[in-house]
């Protein structure tokens, strides 16, 4: 338990640093100096000591509870990745994050946050590629245990990314769709101020920042474990940074899509990856070939 607490604290700071790196890379590509990479840590500390209250228009219990649930979900997700437990539980926790976006947006009573929440519901098509990814990984390895999948790739010298590249692209798109300032970030677009979390300020924002930092660490580490394997910790950090920088490049070079375009892209990719999953099933199981 103490080891997990230490990991949790490290993951929070690592996640906030990755967000800082994300902002720095975007700024440098756009020929701006950008904030220092530790800016998100400073933001979170600053928000922690700001005056904090609940807006009079908010559904008060929901407004507070949703923040605590956000932290709870991503702490649980970190636990799942750390223990190498079921990929299905990680998938469920990721899906439940949708409720966080929706609940955060609806609970304040603000029209800006509500639009963010409604956009979050509309972009639900992002979850189906994730399910297809889970299915494809299961078809290849015959297990949903993250620990076993990571170990099997090292044992057989077969990273999943080489044999199931479209599945890796799917998870990468999920990471991209959850990145700040990205082409799919319609739920926190600037025309909605900060979107679904506009009205969560002070300590609430600090807690949400912590949850988002954990989310980034969980998604990036899950990508490495599922598609590259159980690598040493230093290589894990390098790969997570490389993934984050690549996401930042896309975010810096791509304009934000409209909600309609977001849903269209997600739906097209869903169809492609579901067809790919069907082909994998036919080849591996109907054809009787197992790695």
């Amino acid at each position: 338990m103490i080891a997990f607490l230490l990991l949790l604290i490290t993951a929070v700071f690592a996640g906030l640093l990755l967000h800082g790196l994300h902002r720095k890379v975007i700024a440098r590509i756009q020929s701006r100096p950008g904030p220092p990479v530790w800016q998100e840590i400073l933001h979170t500390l600053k928000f922690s000591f700001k005056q904090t209250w609940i807006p009079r228009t908010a559904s008060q219990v929901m407004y507070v509870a949703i923040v605590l649930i956000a932290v709870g979900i991503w702490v649980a997700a970190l636990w799942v990745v750390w223990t190498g437990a079921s990929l299905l539980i990680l998938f469920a926790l990721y899906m439940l994050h949708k409720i966080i976006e929706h609940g955060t947006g609806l609970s304040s009573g603000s029209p800006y946050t509500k639009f963010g929440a409604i956009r979050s519901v509309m972009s639900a098509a992002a979850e189906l590629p994730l399910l297809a990814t889970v299915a494809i990984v299961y078809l290849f390895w015959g297990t949903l245990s993250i620990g076993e999948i990571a170990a099997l790739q090292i044992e057989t010298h077969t990273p999943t990314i080489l044999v199931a590249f479209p599945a890796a692209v799917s998870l990468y798109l999920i990471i991209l769709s959850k990145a700040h300032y990205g082409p799919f970030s319609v739920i926190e677009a600037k025309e909605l101020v900060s979107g679904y979390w506009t009205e969560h300020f002070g300590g609430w924002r600090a807690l949400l920042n912590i949850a988002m930092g954990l989310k980034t660490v969980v998604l990036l580490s899950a990508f490495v474990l599922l598609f590259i394997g159980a690598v040493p910790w230093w290589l894990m950090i390098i790969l997570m940074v490389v993934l984050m920088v690549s996401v930042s490049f896309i975010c810096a070079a791509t304009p934000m899509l409209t909600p309609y375009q977001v849903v269209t892209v997600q739906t097209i990719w869903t169809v492609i990856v579901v067809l790919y999953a069907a082909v994998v099933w036919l080849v591996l199981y109907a054809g009787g070939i197992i790695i």
Partner: protein
Amino acid sequence: MFEQILLTLPFGDIVHYLSGYTVVLFAFAAMFVILAVISLPEKPVDIVFGTDGYYTKEIPVDLMKFQRFMAIACGIATIGAITTGDVFNFTLFAAFIGILNIGIVAAVKNKHVLDAAFSYGLVVMMATVPLFAGAAIIAATCGTLSIWELAGTGPAPLVARLLILVGVLGEGMAPFYIGKAEITRAPGAPYILMIHVSSLLLFLRVVEILLTV
């Protein structure tokens, strides 16, 4: 069984159970039922277009009570869908959730919300056809609807599993969810949120069922 079983409650050949996976879903559903019970709705702020003005709306008490009742019923139906060990009961709970989702916004006096609820209702009713057809095919081919027994008798027909999946998607997931996005414009955050919670949890449960049977 696909995941580690934590608790079983047998009723004849039907064994209700909680696994490591469904216990996460159960906890989440229970949490949102409690939130629906103890939370008061927000006061939605509307902008007066063309000016800097805005106004807040109070949700009438009778509307709040009706929405709260429907949301709690929807939450309980969701818990039923999560914990049941019977495919037919699952499909019943799924259809029930679809109806209750409409019920949560049925008393809202807003044309756009009601139009969206009507469209969503049509999709939900059509989705019950593949949902129950899938369960019927499983019963006809396997001789049981008990998930517990189906887990040990080999896979159910693929067409039945696909029909159940399509039915659950029709209850509010992509690509049939678009009407649902509009009905969440209705006021009453703790109750409206249950619409989304129930659909997501239903989808997560059906994934487990389809991998098990």
